[in-house]
């Protein structure tokens, strides 16, 4: 489709839908609405929204959806660290129920016992999966969960009178940028550890970093490299000895379910992204849930309210006390995703979850094995088994052919596939990060591998094909020069019109 921007579909007088109106008797009773608005607050001109008939609006957005590559549509293993897995269709059908969609968060608890039971049961399951003692589902993404954890770290130290002194949080460079960013939002100074030569977090560096200023330590394990830090318990011990809190970024716990837990590794808190490991969909980037678990000691600091079961078997919302960080998101979080994750766990049981971890790791190691055979590809750091993902490098290919990882990801579009390179900074040069999860079959992986092989061959034989990609995408190569220029960037259609109109007039 060569679909215009929606404003271009405007035809004066068209209507997409007529909203409910006012009954004549009501209007008679209260008069016109304008009179009820203070003069200074009456909008003088209608918003300049386009006027479009319903059929055209629907057609437009259906076409845009077809121009979007959901994980339902392709072998979606190229967004490593994001755990793009199969979204069971049944879960999507289950949430489309007015008994879910039409619930108001302030309904009396007696009118939402089913919903609260789902929260409560998911809490129980998450406790078992992590070894933690209490969960909040309020954080609505991994980033918000990290922010909540950093907030708890602060509240904890404040409560102990060490808030002023402990102003540093330690993280690692192969952890998600939000670990550092959210700690900084909470006013912390960030210490970032770089790995040792094998790609493991460096215990010596940690020992040097901790002090009486240490508020907390946040890390993923495995990190983006897929390398599991087997000495993690020593890390948490070091931090605890220094008086810090250890919190665990388990956004992606896909390789670990039923295998190992936050508790045994010595963490005080962890979170899981329900939209990653627990098969809730990503929805173009939210809404989502970062399920936040803490030990009994930190439970008073959780945001509230929490769901509890009273002595009569009735589910209730229990407000948190004064120690709580308060709230991080309105209401109770993204309830429909809580339901999805609960449904997913119920569909698998304990053995099913462990199967997930094993197959995800198996798939990843198969992929790892195969990709290392592709000319120009490598996986930096320790040789050997990775868990659920690997950060690879096209450095050799790039050195030898001039083709970059960005070129290749554009070329992948032509195969109906894609990948994401990596978070900045590119510690691993020319990176790409693949995570096959348990959802994809050997044939799927082989299809993906073949595409990479094909492109590698092209890079060595006809690099121009790769460098000028995409060739069969919805659109051609973007001219991105304006995106960082305040004079030229256009973040809305109205800005676009303002900034290009003079140019258009000049041309005349």
């Amino acid at each position: 489709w060569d679909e215009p921007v929606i404003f271009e579909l405007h035809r004066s007088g068209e209507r997409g839908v007529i909203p409910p109106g006012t009954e004549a008797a009501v209007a008679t009773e209260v008069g016109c609405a304008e009179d009820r608005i203070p003069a200074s607050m009456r909008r003088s001109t209608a918003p300049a929204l386009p006027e479009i008939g319903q059929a055209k609006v629907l057609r437009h957005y259906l076409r845009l959806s077809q121009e979007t590559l959901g994980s339902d549509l392709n072998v979606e293993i190229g967004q490593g660290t994001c755990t793009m897995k199969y979204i069971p269709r049944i879960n999507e059908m289950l949430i489309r129920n007015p008994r879910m969609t039409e619930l108001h968060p302030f309904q009396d608890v007696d009118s939402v016992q089913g919903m609260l039971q789902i929260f409560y049961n998911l809490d129980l399951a998450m406790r078992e999966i992590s070894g933690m003692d209490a969960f909040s589902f309020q954080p609505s993404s991994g980033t918000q969960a990290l922010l909540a954890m950093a907030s708890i770290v602060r509240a904890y130290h404040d409560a102990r009178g060490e808030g002023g002194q402990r102003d540093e949080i330690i993280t690692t460079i192969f952890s998600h940028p939000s670990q550092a960013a959210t700690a900084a939002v909470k006013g912390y100074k960030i210490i970032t550890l770089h790995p040792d030569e094998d790609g493991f977090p460096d215990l010596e560096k940690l020992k040097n970093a901790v002090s009486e200023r240490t508020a907390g330590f946040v890390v993923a394990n495995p990190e983006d490299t897929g390398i599991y830090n087997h000495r993690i318990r020593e890390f948490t011990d070091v931090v605890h000895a220094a008086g810090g809190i250890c919190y665990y970024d388990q956004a992606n716990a896909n390789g670990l379910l039923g295998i190992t837990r936050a508790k045994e590794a010595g963490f005080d808190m962890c979170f899981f992204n329900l939209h990653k490991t627990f098969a809730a969909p990503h929805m173009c980037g939210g809404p989502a849930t970062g399920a936040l678990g803490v030990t009994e000691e930190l439970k008073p600091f959780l945001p509230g309210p929490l769901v509890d079961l009273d002595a009569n078997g009735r589910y209730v919302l229990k407000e948190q006390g004064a120690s709580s960080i308060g709230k991080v998101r309105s209401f109770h979080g993204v309830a429909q995703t809580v339901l999805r994750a609960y449904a997913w766990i119920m569909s698998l049981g304990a053995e099913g979850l462990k199967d997930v971890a094993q197959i995800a790791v198996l798939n990843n190691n198969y992929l790892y094995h195969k990709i290392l055979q592709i000319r120009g590809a490598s996986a930096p750091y320790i040789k050997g088994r990775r868990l659920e993902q690997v950060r690879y490098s096209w450095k050799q290919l790039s050195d030898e052919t001039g083709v970059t990882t960005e070129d290749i990801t554009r070329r992948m579009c032509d195969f109906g596939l894609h990948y994401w390179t990596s978070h900045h900074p590119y510690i691993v040069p020319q990176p790409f990060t693949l995570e096959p999860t348990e959802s994809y079959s050997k044939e799927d992986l082989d299809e993906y591998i073949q595409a990479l092989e094909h492109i590698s061959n092209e890079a060595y034989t006809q690099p121009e094909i790769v460098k000028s990609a995409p060739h069969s995408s919805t659109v051609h190569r973007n001219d991105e020069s304006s995106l960082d220029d305040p004079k030229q960037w256009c973040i809305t259609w109205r800005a676009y019109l303002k900034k290009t109109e003079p140019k258009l007039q000049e041309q005349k």
Partner: protein
Amino acid sequence: MLKEIGLTSMDQLHDAIPDSLKLDRRMNLPPAMNEYELRRHIDSLLAKNKHGADYLNFLGAGCWQHFIPAVCDEINQRSEFVTAYAGEPYEDHGRFQALFEYQSLLAELVDMDVVNVPTFDWAQAASTAIRMAGRITGRKTALLPRSVDPDKAAIISNYCTPVMDIQFIEIDQVTGRMDLDDLRSKLSDDVAAVYFENPGYLGIIEDQGAEISGLAHGVNAVSIVGVDPISLGVLEPPGRYGADIICGDLQPLGMHMNYGGGQAGFIATRDEEKYVMEYPSRLFGIVPTEVEGEYGFGDVAYERTSFALREKGKESVGTQTALWGITAGVYLSLLGPAGMQEVGSTIIQKSHYAVKKLSDIPGVSLRFEGAFFKEFVVDFNDTGLSVAEINRRLMEEGIFGGKDLSAGYPEWGQCALYCVTEIHTQSDLDRLVAALRSIACTSL
């Protein structure tokens, strides 16, 4: 596959993990269910819920029941949009375009040139707006009226601690509007921002916007206004009374309540570098492509973000609420200018009708005198009944009464925040009034 990678058992896959860290037992979870068992299980749980489509619902307070065009659901249930995430501008051209269009459509509604890819909710949007103001001004204090939703205030407070201080401005106890004298007394060179809402949490229209913004600008502070976007077909966009940053929640624009899962926050500003560069969010921009006349889309000023700069970026960015942004775009495309005006007018008329009828009930009155939109505080003190008791009896009649304010605002006694929208028919409102009249009468 095991063989191909040189292993002989599945257990070897996790050799990298020391035994001491391994869980030495099977997790204690309920047995697995097949799809049919799961459907029956979940449906039986949900059957315990009573919902707003079968009940008559007057709860609002930040999550509102509005008319949702069927096309909104059709689009946000599309497999492609549900399961997409973070593709590039080529294979996800449709996602980029849909979000750029959302930004553009909301920009018209709020009358600003820059809108972000949506964030979690109004509270987050307000928090970030305040932190943006803090960075722009290099100051630490933000002023909020006392009438801000206590839950929202808790979120803002946590998000701003310890980098910024939040102070409250009193409200006029009769009109519910901001007490400008108190505002004046608190303004100083430490103030980064003055935040207020239209309509406010209590439904009140703050018509002193130009004065408030003027006072804020007088000390070189930023004026931030939170809005309910469904009011903007009929209420003046805040930029016209001096707002520098606008924020609010998209939930009214096509999202089901979902027990609070329908929220999505937006931030809008003028197209000035000093504002744009302080957004933590992704901002999608339109660009030309190699082909004349073709549009492409990409990230504007990506280097601002924590994706690019980690802790040096602006706050943090990650998964937020993109699908609701797309949905709000669909909603605004469908309603158009006339629809937004109509829906705003209808809400005003219906809520005023409800107030008029409710006020006729002996013992029931309105707490505030000022102009309001959609929500209003009903004072039940003179009925001799608690809001809890009234709501219990309303529920027996199939009605969810307004939100009980007695815990949050003990000084007002037994008051409740009622929400009336375009979905309430005259007969719905008459039914509420009759039920309340009957409850109030039995007590008097």
